[in-house]
């Protein structure tokens, strides 16, 4: 009897140990987001919008949407054109869907590419330190002093024809430095910790330590930074397109739709051309930021709400 009880107690204790196992990073993120209603709604909105625009744009005929129709210029919203037409008689709703898709695609691509370069560069630089760090940071400094928006504009003008990929690459080339610096400073701290020393003593290679031990330990920082970068990158793309240095008008993006508003008549009398794009950019940015903020809190135990 007493034995049985002891067994039960033991089982119970084992259970308790399992329960108390520290939750994984992703679970914390998820819990934090569930806890913060605004962040949850934002995340849902982001996911649905992304799925929506990528899904709908599969069935939309882009050729048809960017087709100039002389007999449907500046149509206000109607059953046929849900959000009216622009000065080329082109459906704004279709342009909004495809434009959002293009802007999001560029935002994601640039974030991923610049994140990848920045993380590798930063973690390698920070981990090795010393001369390696010195040289790599000077290279980074060089990129930082370049007036990058100007250079992107020049590139875009020179590159004879560009698409989502080439545009993303040009933007990436000048947008990886921020994240590289951040990761590097974190890696500098991280490499002084005992587990790195221990792993080294056990004979692990640098590559193994960097990518399987240090990197996972700074995941939370990476996730947070990249999320916040996403909003910034979408903004930069829209800004460039707005100024006329992004995509040509035949490839709609949120920025090109917005740039129609530079015409005083459009601004005043044809709200349907630019208001949806403007509101969408606003909401997208806020949503990404909300999610990012929630993740940021989750990454820092002191700020967590969950």
């Amino acid at each position, binding site marked *: 009897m007493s034995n049985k009880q002891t067994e039960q107690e033991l089982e119970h204790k084992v259970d308790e140990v399992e329960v108390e196992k520290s939750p994984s990073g992703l679970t914390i993120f998820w819990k934090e987001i569930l806890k913060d*209603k*605004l962040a949850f709604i934002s995340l849902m909105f982001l996911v649905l919008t992304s799925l929506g625009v990528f899904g709908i744009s599969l069935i939309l005929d882009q050729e048809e949407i*960017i*087709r*100039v129709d*002389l*007999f449907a*210029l*500046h149509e*206000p919203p109607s059953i046929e054109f849900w959000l009216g037409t*622009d*000065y*080329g*008689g*082109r459906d704004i709703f279709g342009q909004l869907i495809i434009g959002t898709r293009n802007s999001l695609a560029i935002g994601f691509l640039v974030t991923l590419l610049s994140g990848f370069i920045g993380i590798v560069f930063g973690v390698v630089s920070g981990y090795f330190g010393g001369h390696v760090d010195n040289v790599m940071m000077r290279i980074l400094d060089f990129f930082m002093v370049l007036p990058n928006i100007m250079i992107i504009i020049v590139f875009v003008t020179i590159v*004879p*024809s560009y698409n989502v990929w080439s545009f993303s690459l040009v933007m990436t080339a000048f947008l990886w430095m921020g994240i590289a610096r951040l990761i590097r400073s974190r890696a500098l701290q991280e490499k002084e910790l005992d587990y790195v020393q221990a792993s080294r003593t056990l004979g692990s290679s640098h590559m193994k330590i960097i990518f399987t031990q240090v990197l996972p330990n700074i995941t939370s920082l990476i996730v947070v930074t990249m999320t916040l970068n996403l909003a910034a990158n979408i903004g930069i793309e829209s800004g460039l397109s707005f100024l*006329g240095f992004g995509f*040509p*008008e*035949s490839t709609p993006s949120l920025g090109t739709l917005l740039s129609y508003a530079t*015409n*005083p*008549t459009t*601004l*005043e*009398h*044809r*709200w349907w051309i630019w*208001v949806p794009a*403007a*509101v969408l950019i*606003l909401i997208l940015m*806020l949503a990404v930021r909300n999610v990012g903020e929630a993740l940021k809190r989750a990454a820092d135990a002191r700020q967590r709400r969950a």
Partner: protein
Amino acid sequence: MSKSLMGKYLFVLMLALFLVLAACGGDDEGAEDPSDDGSEGTEETEEQKEEEEEEAVDPEDQIYDIDDFSTAVSNDGDPIDGGSLNYGLVSDTVFEGTLNFNFYGGTPDFEILQWIDEALLSMDENYTYTQDGAATFEADQENNSITFTIRDDVQWHDGEELTAEDWVFSYEVIADPEYTGVRYGTAGFTLIEGIEQYREGETDSIPGIEIHDEKSFTINYERLTPSLLTGGVWTYALPKHIFGDIPVAEMEESDAVRQEPIGIGPFMVDSIVPGESVSLVKNENYWRGEPNLDEVTVRVINPSVVVQELETGGVDLVSSFPVDQYPENSQMENVEFLGQIDMAYTYIGFKLGDWDEEASKVNYMPDEMKMGDVELRRAMWYAVDNDTVGERFYNGLRWAGTTLIAPSHPDYHDDSIEVPTFEPEEAERILDEAGYEDVTGDGFRETPDGEELVINFASMSGGDVAEPIANYYVQSWQNVGLNVQLLDGRLHEFNSFYDRVGNGGNDDPDVDIYMGAWSVGSDVDPSGLYGSNAMFNFPRYESEENDRLLEEGISEEAFDVEYRQEVYSEWQEFMVEEIPVFPTLYRSELRPANLRVTNYNIEQGSGVYLHELGVTQEEPVVAE
């Protein structure tokens, strides 16, 4: 925290909503105004009439006709004594302030100069010199000379008499090798006898010019061309008593040009705010009579505020008005819109060769260029609907062009010439017959040799509707099976566009066709644009017949206007046959005038002069 955050979001959303509502409100207002407007003699297409049954005509759907515009203000009241008027100089930038006809370069300076100085010879509506100006002339065809006589009562603003020497002095300055301006080089100078000797410093005065007395002189030319009498002769004098002591190279920078400009015009400069405005007062001794207005202020205004300035009466007249803003503002209460045909046309050009730098002439090689086949070019003309482009994008204020001499030269524009109009079936028939057929089945035609045909279309950015128009043309050509693509997939900025098309002689071989525009001079002679030696001949087209006709148009026989008309009719018809370029749109020019303005006519040679310009009330009329 969460609550206050929600508050912030609500605020942002409200802001967004407010913007939407404000925009809607603005739209309604715009739509209401012209609801009962059918009386302006506007033409509407069937389609629009159908729409009209449902709702009042949207100002954007209204079609206007430049012939319905008057060139003169309807206010025929008596001008008040001592009125003052504000003239808006519409420009993105400041004016340079080179205020002398002999030195100025930009249009903004010209807008100021027209008040303070004037040409000694007047022009009629065909830009031919008349005897109504401050001087008269007599052409002697046998001796190839023209004798000019200045009226007795013409004075400079400082009271000095205008003499023949002043006029000749302007020739000597402009022909001087040290001269810094851009006026030298036209036939009016280069054809003068002995001008080269003068330029090389062999003589102190120009041998071909003889001064007879205070008021008259004769210029001997190597030969006379009709161009001389349609703007070729230099008709702006330069006061020798002021400029005589200034070295030619320093004249342009001198105070007499920059700070105290002088002329013979109806108004004198009172004060200048550099780059911003010029105050003018009347010249009581103006030779045509004392001006009605006491003061005129010429002020630079930005194109984006033209409408507001006009509505509030800030300016009475403006130097130009953006045509695309007209439909929304056609009902402006305090302003009357004047209009006329602009001296310009838009066209589509086909590259048929390149520029031969050494020979300094075009290198026409149709067999090697994609667009070398005239049937292909003709089909492309048939494939585009210029009338609809003009109606839909410009509300009829631009309309389909026919020949390369625009109707702004009514004597020479031949509207009886039949030109291709929008007939896609005809375009397809021509292409089929010429052997352009789709043999690969990709939906696009190949060349008669079976090779792939991709036509690169260069077009300019800038201008509000540049992009949809360029895409419309691309679409139209694709509709008849021609694979036309925008060069590099986008529009090109003004300067780089003209560089690639051939301004400078380095034609980009990637450009096959392009859409450009020409503003034409007062002389109808098109050889500067289509002659075989002209750099501006961007299509690089050349033929004997073309050269012959252009030559005949400026020959001595062409002094006979009827003969010249025949030659240019023939030339226009020849160009419609050959199609190195085809005009797409003719344009109109709009000039709004405040309702208090009287005696104002924008037409060339109208016989209404600036000294008669007046206002019928002290304050400008303001929109309610």
